[in-house]
Each structure stands twice: as C-alpha cells, then as structure tokens.
C-alpha cells in the first residue's frame, strides 16, 4: 500500500528539456555565482554594438541604432508584461502611453511646440533629462485616468476600450495641428548635450554623431540598458510581494481573489499605472534619440507588435519578454539590405517589408505548438521564499537524474 502511495504522491521523473535544465541549474546556484555570471553577461550584451560580430551585425541599418531600438522596445515589453502577463489585463492600446511619453518630451522641448519650455526655464542641454520625469508622471496620470473607469470592465470589453484609447491618442496627435504640429510632427526635440568635442560638436547623444561604433545609437542603447536593469529590479520587487501575488490572483480568478481579501480594483489600477509609466519612459527615450515625433510612429499596429513581443517571449516572464522584443526588432533589421544568407541569394528588403506577414505566421505557429510562449517561466511570488524554491528545485533535479528517492518521506509530524 505504501509503495502505491509513493507513486501517487510523486509523479514519474519529469522529462526536463534543455531550457528547463538550464533554468533549474541557474535557480540552484548561490547568489554570488549568479552575479558572477550575470554581470559579465550583461557587459557582453552591452558591448555587442562595439564588437560588431559579423554574424549578428545588421547590414542595411546601423547595428547600434537597432540595438537602441531593441532596448526601448524591451522596456515597453517589460511594462506591458506587468499589465498583460502578470495582472492578465489585455491592453491593446499600450502604444498610447508610448506616444504620451514621447509627445510630452516633444511638447516641452521642441521649438515647434507652443508649450516649448527650453527657451524659458528648461536649460537647452538638460531639457531632455528634466522632461523625462515629467513625461513619466504624465503617462502615469493618463494610466490612472484611463484605468479608473475602464478597469471595471473585464476581458474583451477592456481590450476594446484600450484599443480605442490608443487610437484616440494618435488621432489627437494627428489633428491638434496648433499644438502637436499634426502630421508634420515635432522636430528638434532636446537631447542630453554631453561630452561635446571637436569631432562631435553636438555631443555623443546627438543624431549628428553617426560614425560607428561610438555613435549615438550605442550611447542610447547603454542608457536604455541601464534603465532596463532598474525597471527589472523594481518590477521584480513588486512581483515578489503582496502586489505581485494580487496580480497573479486576479489573472487566475478575479472573483476568488476578491473573496480572499484582495482589493482587486486597486491593484489592477496599480498595474495599469506602473505599465503606463514604463511605457512613458520608453517613449521619452525614443523622443530624445530620434529628436522627432510624428503620429505615424504610434499606429495601433505597434501596440500589436508590443503585445507580440510579450506573447512570443512568454507572458509573465520578464526576461523572456526582453528576448521577445529582441526578436521583433532585430529580425526585420537583420534581413534589411541583405542579398544572400548562407550562400542562398535572397531579397532581404522584401522579407523585411513583409514583417507583419511573417510575424503573423510565426504567432499562429507559436499558438499551436507552444501557446505559453518561448520562455514560459513561473513567476516567483515570495520575497523570502528562496530557500523553499531551491529545496524544490534541488529535489526536481535529483529526481530527474535518478539520484534521489522519489518522495523523501518525512516522519509524520505536522500538527499533531
């Protein structure tokens, strides 16, 4: 009888794929070892545009600029992942927050804007830096304004309303000619004018600094990368707290969560506000890098692209969605300007132009064979549960390797 029970309590040794093994191995490492691998890994990632490895480097566009765009999309994906991946609120208008962040910086610092502040109290060199916190604040407030009436809706209804929000923001930008410049957009947006030299009279962040590898793209990539690390730390802290658990509980069963004492509306609103402010930050970075904003950048199709990054990467996995963002930014740029791949002649520009077709097909394939995304990781939801998780992972690894007793029975103690 006891042997039967053992098979009941412990399922057969799990089949671990390479990814699962890698994750288990990583999770069982002590923290200093994780830092020892993580920090050099991050440095390597940061140095990619400097090293310009022939296999990775894009030919049609500047690799540094592509990486900068990737980093901004990664930031967006992290923010959207809080809303969609953690709290399970389908937001189809996320591009609206990106637009609000970018336009806030534009309106405050562009000479085309009637609300330009760089002539009065914002100094020219530091205009961008001072506009960024304002942009984050304004997007957070817009998240609050959008969220407080709409978060009483659920599922499809919420998706439709947010879709409308994204379009409203773009249409406002397109039609308020007197303020936003309409279709012409806002140009000459401020950027941090630092490290000016004879070779780079406008500073390293200026669009005029275009000689690779130390061009503006690289510097913006580094700034964005640093902000990604900060955002990951913050979002991670939230995930492993009452807030993150409330989000996941809401995603799983909103009514049950409410009955278990979770103030669901409050935490849904927080998810919206945090997602919005990260999106606004990314928009502000974009405005500074390109020094120009126009409504076409904020089409609703971009919302879908951001969502695509989250879904491909694996909803809920904040590192996975960064890979998702890399895929959607890098792949089209990889093909751009390429005439042959592995000796096979291809028309890279055509492939890049049909990116939505390919992303659509890829998404469908993914939904059929791997609906949880490429890197489905369970979130860790306990700040102090490290010992617990590690004990479980060691046991799983041992079980998979056949080195352990399948179910380490403990002497019956418990409550009595």
């Amino acid at each position, binding site marked *: 009888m*006891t042997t*039967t*029970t053992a098979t*009941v*309590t*412990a*399922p057969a040794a*799990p*089949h*671990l*794929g390479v990814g*699962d093994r890698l*994750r288990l191995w990583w999770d069982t490492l002590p923290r200093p070892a994780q830092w020892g691998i993580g920090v050099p890994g991050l440095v390597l990632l940061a140095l990619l545009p400097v090293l310009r490895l022939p296999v990775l480097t894009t030919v049609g566009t500047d690799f540094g600029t592509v990486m900068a765009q990737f980093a901004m999309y990664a930031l967006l994906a992290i923010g959207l992942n809080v809303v969609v991946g953690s709290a399970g609120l389908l937001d189809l208008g996320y591009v609206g927050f990106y637009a609000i962040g970018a336009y806030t910086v534009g309106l405050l610092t562009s000479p085309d804007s009637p609300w330009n502040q760089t002539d009065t109290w914002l100094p020219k060199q530091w205009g961008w830096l001072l506009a960024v916190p304002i942009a984050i604040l304004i997007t957070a407030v817009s998240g609050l304004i959008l969220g407080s009436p709409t978060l009483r809706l659920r599922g499809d209804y919420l998706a439709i309303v947010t879709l409308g929000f994204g379009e409203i923001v773009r249409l406002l930008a397109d039609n308020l000619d007197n303020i936003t410049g309409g279709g012409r957009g806002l140009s000459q947006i401020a950027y941090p004018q630092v490290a000016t030299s004879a070779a780079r009279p406008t500073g390293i962040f200026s669009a005029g600094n275009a000689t690779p590898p130390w061009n503006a793209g690289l510097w913006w990539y580094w700034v964005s990368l640093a902000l990604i690390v900060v955002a990951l730390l913050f979002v991670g*802290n*939230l995930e492993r*707290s*009452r*807030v993150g*658990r*409330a989000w*996941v*509980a809401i995603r*799983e*069963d909103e009514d*049950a*969560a409410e*009955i*278990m*004492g*979770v*103030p*669901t509306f*409050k935490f849904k609103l*927080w998810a919206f506000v*945090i997602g919005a402010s990260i999106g606004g930050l990314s928009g502000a970075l974009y405005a500074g890098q390109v020094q120009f904003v126009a409504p076409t950048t904020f089409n609703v199709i971009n919302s879908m692209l951001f969502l695509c990054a989250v879904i491909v990467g694996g909803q809920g996995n904040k590192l996975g969605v960064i890979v998702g963002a890399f895929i959607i930014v890098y792949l089209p740029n990889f093909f751009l300007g390429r005439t042959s791949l592995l000796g096979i002649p291809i028309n890279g520009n055509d492939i890049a132009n049909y990116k939505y077709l390919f992303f659509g097909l890829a998404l469908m394939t993914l939904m059929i064979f791997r609906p*949880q995304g490429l890197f*489905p990781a*369970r979130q860790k*939801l*306990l700040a*102090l*549960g490290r*010992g*617990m*998780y590690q*004990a*479980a*992972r060691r*046991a*799983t690894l041992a079980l998979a390797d056949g080195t352990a007793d*399948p*179910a*380490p*029975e*403990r002497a*019956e*103690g*418990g*409550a*009595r």
Partner: protein
Amino acid sequence: MSVGPSEPRAGAEHGDQHLGTEGEYLTQDSVEEEFLPDGGVVPQVAVDVAEVDPALADPETVAHLVAPDRRIATEVGGALLQMDAVTMRFGGLVALDAVSFEIKRGEILGLIGPNGAGKTTCFNTMTGVYRPTSGQVVFDGRPIGAIKRNQITRLGIARTFQNIRLFSDMTALENVVVGTDARHRTSVPGALVRSRRHRAEERDALERGMALLEFVGIGRRATQQARNLPYGDQRRLEIARALATEPKLLCLDEPAAGFNPTEKAELMDLIRKIRDDGYTVLLIEHDMRLVMGVTDRIVVLEFGRKIADGLPAEVASDPAVVAAYLGVPDDATA
C-alpha cells in the same frame, strides 16, 4: 490520526466513490502531464518542510502559528453572525424567504437542505457576493450590507468554494500566502523599496503559510502547483487558504464533495481541530453522517425557508425535516 497525503487510501474499494480513489489520482496525474507538457515541470516533488524551516518540525510551533490572534467583539457562545429576516429574490424566484438564524461563536453550525434549497445563496449573502433584497446580515456587531467583498474578508468571514477555485498557476504555498495577504498592508511603494514592514509581512506570510499547510496536512506539497495537486489536497488547500485570512467565521461549502469515507473521517477531524483552535465554522454539506458527526447545531432550509433549527439529534427526528430531506431515518446513516 493524520490527514497527511501519505496515508494509505483505504476505502478505495467502495464502488460508489467515483472521485478521490487511487485510480482516479493516477489518471488525473497522467492527464495533467499530457495536457501540460512543461507547465508543471519545475517543482513537482515533495519538499521537506523541516529543511526549509526547522521550527516547523515541531507540532507545537505549528499550532501556535495557526491559531490567530484576533479581536472578536462577540463573547464565546454569543451570536457571531445573525441572519435577520434575509430575503433574496432573483427576478420572480425567491431564493431565500425571510431566513433568520444565528451562528454562535465557537460552534460548528451545519446548514443543510435538498438541492436548490438556498444553501449557497445563503452563503453568498453572508460573504457579500449578493446583497439581500431585504433583511440584513449582522456580523460581529456590524451590519455588512454595504461593505465591499474584500473588506468583508478582512472583517473576518472566509469561505471555500463548492467547485474548487484555487489560483491554479500558483504553488500551494503561494495560494495560502494570498490568504495571509488579507491581513497585510504593503502596497506598491513599500514593495518597491522593500520596506521594513514589507519584509516583516513576507516573513509572517511564509511562516504562517507553511504552518497552515502543515496544519491541514499538505506541507510536503508546498511548492507544487495547485493545479497538479490531487483532488483531496486541493480541497484541503482551499481550507488552508481561507484560514490564512485569519477569519472569525470559516464557511465551508460542501468540503467533502467527492470524498471517500476515509477522507471524510479525516475531514471531520480537521474541522473539529479548526474549531478547537478557536474558529467558528459554518458547514454546508450533503453527507448526513458527516453533518451529524461533526456539527453542534443544524439549520435546515427547504425552498428558501428555514424549516428546522436545533441539535443534530432533534433535527434528525423532526418530522418536517424527515419529510423534506432525510427520507426514512435509517438512511440518514447510510
């Protein structure tokens, strides 16, 4: 006796039990694996509680952590919850018709009645899911008419669900910790900077969460995903999650549904143990042996009306109850 999952499951030979037998468990597990090729790979193994927190190896510590320290206005034996002529209408249907009864602090009250008698509606008016059409529910001296559902939980009413509603992606421990969060106050700012209060609450959550899992007998399953737990353990986990909110009143909605006799006996022990720890329990249940065996008092509903209220023995011999529900008295113990 223990309610631990390692207990051999006797009674599997009872042909009338379709759920919770050994065969069922095995198929359930294999089905999960088929549909979730890697969803549940990570921690599907038992965790040694003592390895994680050595203090929890001591039953005394567990009992101490589980027993909450609440302020209850009502005296022991006083009316903790009063249903005061509660009527609930859905369109033309009268689900509850001027139902009045009270739950005394420290007792186990059984709420029984045939299918459709209004038991679950009664439950839902108590927990704020429905607002009564007329009448009011008074809990620990406060009418709960206009209070939000999540605040009712913080006032001290916790419940389980007839059809299990766990957070299936979370581990067993995380499910319970969501319950403990009902008593915590950390919000976004505190969690962002990992404030002192946040860390203290996290420690409390982990400690109480593990203790509660041990208390209901599924401590070894702490890191398994709720959806991968066997049926009986899911029911226990629901109870642990409800207890984690530190309720004054624990409402169990058919907790023994699908249990075999051994599991029912274990559940009866658990319910008594919960009462002895100072909780008041409301139990909706169909199984008459369980209700008769464990409750201190029984309220019987039929077609939305209360038809009896008294000690188990009185209710069992009440002609109205027998006619409505129990049938021939001999069957009551079948």
